[in-house]
């Protein structure tokens, strides 16, 4: 069997076992990843259009549904729910099935399970599509990150519960009594999303509380969605794949539990830093500052665990494994930068200058497209060959996707940080007029547009590579070479 060497399973579990496990989750994982990538392309396109609108405000002007105010939440929500959350579901299902060393279900139960998962995936994507169209048509809620109307977010939550419950139940059915670190993170992520998303929608969208209480809840939601749902799944990918790819054990595994619990503890509080100096009680501001800085503790532990496993670089083999490894490692680098930037921006003095500037955009990008998306790309590259039973990626396209993503993201983030610094410093001088400050940021916006174009190209190439890989199955009679 020409099989992909990456196996999150223990070395003793191989052969037929892995085939049965992969077969039990093949269709749902492929459908989830396929849809996620297609939303990534749409979101990247919207992000590019938005960056053009910052250079030429009249671009696509006069059309109600194409104004900046509607496209911006559409793009962000597609990145969050269309791409990242859906890819995290796919990655989570595959990793959990593999790590638990047992097919999710067999026979009739297997067919029912697959049908249910596919049905839920259809529901998820329908909710995304209708929610996006609702924002398009002017029915957005105006609550940041929760712009989808109540019925669409209810569909998303229901769909998540139907998909996610299997990953958690699977944990209880695992072969090996000793749970892996990656499995803790998966269980945590899959448990946190319904709680976070349900609470936030209940209190902000379905039955909004008095607006004086909405600020902290909204900040908590933003922090929790990233750090308690998406990041744990991304980290699970790192914990599951990196040591195996490098053929080593985790470095200082005894620290992992501390990292896990501190991350969960600080994840929610971390969001508070979005409101430093704002209309909240002083103790909340203080909690935000402390959590923003302390988040460096779990990040440091995670980095020690994962990057400590690779002191030498003899595994810099090209091809899929190289791509997977590069994405996983760069995901960690992005996490380090996100953590440092978060800690810095949590300091009241720095926050006073940089909050509301492009630096907050830079932080969002580095979280969602770096620390979270890179490991998810890694899982996508790692899982497809064993799921399809053949070497399915086009090496050239994979390599182009890798380099375009890296260069696009780092260029975008550096420009946003620089532009944010400029405008932040100018804003703290009240004698400089606001329109003058707007003109300072023009050159940065022009270059950001180029960076968005690189990211769009990267997304399109990934889409092409994935379509090619999937279509090959239908085009050739004999899928296994």
């Amino acid at each position, binding site marked *: 069997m020409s099989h992909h060497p990456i196996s999150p399973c223990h070395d003793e579990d191989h052969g037929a076992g892995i085939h049965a496990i992969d077969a039990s989750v093949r269709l749902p994982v492929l459908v989830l990843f396929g849809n996620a990538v297609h939303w990534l392309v749409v979101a990247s396109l919207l992000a590019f259009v938005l960056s053009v609108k910052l250079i030429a405000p009249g671009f696509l002007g006069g059309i109600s549904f194409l104004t900046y105010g509607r496209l911006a939440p559409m793009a962000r929500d597609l990145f969050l729910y269309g791409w990242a959350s859906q890819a995290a579901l796919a990655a989570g299902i595959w990793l959990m099935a593999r790590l638990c060393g047992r097919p999710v279900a067999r026979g009739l139960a297997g067919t029912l399970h697959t049908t249910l998962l596919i049905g839920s995936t259809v529901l998820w994507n329908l909710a995304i599509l209708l929610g996006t169209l609702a924002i398009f048509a002017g029915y957005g809620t105006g609550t940041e990150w929760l712009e989808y109307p109540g019925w669409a977010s209810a569909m998303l939550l229901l769909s998540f519960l139907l998909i996610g419950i299997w990953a958690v139940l699977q944990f209880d059915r695992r072969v090996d009594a000793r749970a892996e670190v990656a499995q803790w993170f998966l269980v945590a992520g899959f448990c946190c999303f319904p709680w976070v998303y349900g609470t936030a929608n209940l209190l902000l969208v379905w039955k909004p509380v008095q607006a004086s209480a909405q600020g902290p809840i909204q900040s908590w939601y933003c922090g929790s969605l990233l750090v308690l749902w998406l990041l744990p799944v991304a980290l699970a990918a790192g914990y599951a794949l990196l040591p195996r790819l490098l053929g080593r054990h985790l470095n200082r595994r005894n620290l992992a539990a501390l990292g896990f619990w501190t991350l969960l503890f600080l994840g929610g509080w971390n969001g508070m830093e979005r409101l430093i100096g704002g209309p909240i009680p002083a103790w909340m501001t203080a909690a935000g500052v402390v959590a923003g800085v302390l988040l460096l503790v779990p990040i440091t532990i995670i980095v020690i665990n994962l990057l400590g496993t690779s002191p030498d670089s003899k595994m810099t083999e090209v091809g899929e494994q190289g791509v997977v490894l590069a994405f996983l490692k760069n995901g960690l680098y992005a996490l380090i930068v996100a953590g440092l930037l978060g800690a810095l921006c949590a300091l009241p003095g720095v926050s006073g200058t940089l909050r*509301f500037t492009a630096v907050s955009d830079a932080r969002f990008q580095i979280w969602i497209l770096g620390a979270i998306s890179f490991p998810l790309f890694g899982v996508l590259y790692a899982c497809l060959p064993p799921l399809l039973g053949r070497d399915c990626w086009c090496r050239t396209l994979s390599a182009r996707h890798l380099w375009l993503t890296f260069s696009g993201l780092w260029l975008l983030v550096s420009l946003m940080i620089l532009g944010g610094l400029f405008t932040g410093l100018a804003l703290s001088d009240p004698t400089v007029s606001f329109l003058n400050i707007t003109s300072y940021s023009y050159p940065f916006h022009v270059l950001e547009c180029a960076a968005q174009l690189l990211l769009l190209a990267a997304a399109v190439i990934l889409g092409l590579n994935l379509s090619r890989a999937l279509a090959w199955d239908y085009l050739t009679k004999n899928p296994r070479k």
Partner: protein
Amino acid sequence: MHRLPTLLIGIFLVFLTSWYGMVAYPVLGLGRLMPVPDPDTGGSLPGVYGGQAVAGQRVYAAEGCISCHSQQVRQTSVTATDIERGWGVRPSVARDYLRDSTAFLGSRRLGQDLSNVGVRLPDAKWHYKHLYHPSSVCEGSLMPAFSHLFVTRKIQGQRSDDALDLTGADIPKEGYEVVPTAEAKNLVAYLLSLRHDYPLPEAPVKKAGPSAAK
């Protein structure tokens, strides 16, 4: 940590801390804030929105104004100069938002802060012109035109009082006028009612007014 119940209970308890502090406390504490009596008018503070302004919040949400505009004046610090910039006379506090349907706090300032836009720019005509074609009144503005909130129609008899006094290329052809739709009127009514300039027990205002706040 190798058994599902142990792991789930641990996750639940750890997660509960931030949920308690940032969800339960705000709902039970900040969510129950009450208006305070206004000694000057006998009304209450913050003031009640008029019907048009209430409807205007819906337009504000639908158009995604929050993508570029914040509504919060921060505490003055060495680096945060919201008050010096003239965006308000005192920091915004939670009570300021209790009449709002949604707290449009915002996280980005591609445009100016709007917490006190009703005080800073009290002219409805200016807002209509600005919404119709922002750079005609603010050269170099990044704001897109919201011309879809206006209609160009044939003048029937007398020119409407609401008709915009446009300049340059925006002037409609002879016999036509540009008037705001109900949505534009609601939005502008909402913008004009945005003000955090009254004193509250937790946020007093120095009597001297905005110019002396420096």
